[in-house]
């Protein structure tokens, strides 16, 4: 099958959607499909052979912050050329509601289009005109995929219609087979995420830490992620600060070893999550998970069966649960077993096959993807059969 994938975010910036697309593309390539990914990238960025650059994303104020988007004449021309050259059987657009490549591809293509909605909040404000602009492009999508039940619900609320839920994929064995590192073992709590992004929840964990340390003074908190380390520990009493170790940005390999090593993984995120891939990675590595009870997290953790939940933003509840789990090796072993069994459904072998069956469903009996003819060429000339191909 010839598959075209549209990535909305710059290929050279690390992010969940980019990683998802990279893994998906490589999964299909391994199965022998032909895959081309269209992504924003600087023209001099080195790209894998299956990625085609759609030009640089332009920073522009959008929805209250500065977003890097692709739009306008040149981007639209590149999308058309990509569609024309690719002759795809199906194109898979990610984040079709953001005014960038995804929406452009929707607009410029005809034929089987599959779209994945990653964010749980496609539009912050419903605006009548913007809605009609979107709708004209979105109604071309033949199949919609939401990454979680939560994302699906917001999609239905905001845009109507329906979607199938296919979670994000994780290479479970990559995490399960990672080698633990002794210096990260022994009464350790793990946290992965941007330090200076409050929605990742590190401040909540910092608030809970004195209580955890009061009950279990030998505990260490290991933090993997970018951000200002001094600012992060400011709220802690000076005596407790050495109990927090910052590892900075870690590679994929180190992240897997990190998650294999820690005794407890804590995800105190306060919002803005539509899936929670890190929880799946932690469970794949066998780490017992304690997470805030966001809708998306509760779903990934099977409503608390595969990992424990605490009331969102409640530092006391977090501390109480963490102390209990750290002192109960049996419960942690139970979570380890349940988590490892539960994550199989997020493995690429399952997720990739599901996505492929969506492709097969929409392509059966349909013509291949083609660029939508320009209105000017479908005018009089085309009707008279005079238009050039």
């Amino acid at each position: 099958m010839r598959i075209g994938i549209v990535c909305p975010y710059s290929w050279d910036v690390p992010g969940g959607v980019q990683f998802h697309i990279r893994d998906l593309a490589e999964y299909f390539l391994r199965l022998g499909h032909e895959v081309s990914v269209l992504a924003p990238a600087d023209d001099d960025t080195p790209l894998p052979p299956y990625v085609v650059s759609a030009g640089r994303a332009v920073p522009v104020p959008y929805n209250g912050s500065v977003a890097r988007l692709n739009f306008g004449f040149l981007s639209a021309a590149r999308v058309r050329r990509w569609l024309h050259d690719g002759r795809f059987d199906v194109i898979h657009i990610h984040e079709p509601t953001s005014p960038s490549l995804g929406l452009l591809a929707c607009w410029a293509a005809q034929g089987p289009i599959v779209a994945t909605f990653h964010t749980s909040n496609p539009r912050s404000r419903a605006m009548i005109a913007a809605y009609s602009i979107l709708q004209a492009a979105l109604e071309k999508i033949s199949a919609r995929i939401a990454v979680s039940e939560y994302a699906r619900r917001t999609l239905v609320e905001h845009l109507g219609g329906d979607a199938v839920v296919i979670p994000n994929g994780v290479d479970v064995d990559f995490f399960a087979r990672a080698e633990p590192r002794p210096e990260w073992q022994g009464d350790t709590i793990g946290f992965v995420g941007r330090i200076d992004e409050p929605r990742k929840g590190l401040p909540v964990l910092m608030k809970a830490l004195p209580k955890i340390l009061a009950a279990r003074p030998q505990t260490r908190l290991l933090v993997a992620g970018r951000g200002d380390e001094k600012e992060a520990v400011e709220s802690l009493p000076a005596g407790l600060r050495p109990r927090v170790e910052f590892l900075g940005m870690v590679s994929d390999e180190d992240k897997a070893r990190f998650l294999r090593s820690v005794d407890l993984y804590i995800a105190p995120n306060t919002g803005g999550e539509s899936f929670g891939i890190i929880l799946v990675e932690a469970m794949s590595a066998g780490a017992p998970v304690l997470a805030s009870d966001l809708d998306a997290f509760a779903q990934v953790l099977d409503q608390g069966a595969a990992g424990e939940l605490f009331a969102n933003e409640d530092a006391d509840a977090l501390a109480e649960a963490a102390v209990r789990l750290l002192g109960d090796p049996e419960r942690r072993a139970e979570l380890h077993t349940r988590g490892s069994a539960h994550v199989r459904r997020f493995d690429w072998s399952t997720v990739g096959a599901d996505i492929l069956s969506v492709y097969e469903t929409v392509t059966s009996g349909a013509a291949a993807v083609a660029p939508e003819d320009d209105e000017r060429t479908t005018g009089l000339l085309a009707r008279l059969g005079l238009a050039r191909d």
Partner: protein
Amino acid sequence: MALVAIGLYLSWTAGRLDRLHARIDAARAALDAQLLRRASVTQELATSGVLDPAASIVLYEAAHAARQAEEEQREVAESELSQALRAVFAETAQVEAVRAAPGGEAAARELTEAVRRVPMARRFHNDAVRAARALRRHRKVRWFRLAGHAPFPLAFEMDDEPPAALSDRPA
């Protein structure tokens, strides 16, 4: 005699100040009109279907925010509209595409005029503000409270750089 002379001088100054305030009011009304015109032309273009949907949504949101902005956020919102317009109309080809659409010639002309007039109106307004502020800072005005309760005039600061593709005048 001296008192009468001082009185006349003060009264003349108060008149000057009054004229300056009236000039500011007029300039501000003109600036508002130009900003509103720019936002509505942008919105018309965004909903016309001439531009691609991504550019349409970016422009629509920016224009909407500019029209709805509270007074304190107005300068930021209008600056963001300037940035959005610059991002969308960075290429001459985009302007050509608008011109080629039915009615596009008129829309492109209106937008070109709007983005050119906003900086003009803003400069005239800020010029009047500067003149009034200079006079109001003078001690005779402060001591005799010649400005009454009129609020201290504030300049309108924003990024009003027009898009490159719209700012070069056709030969």
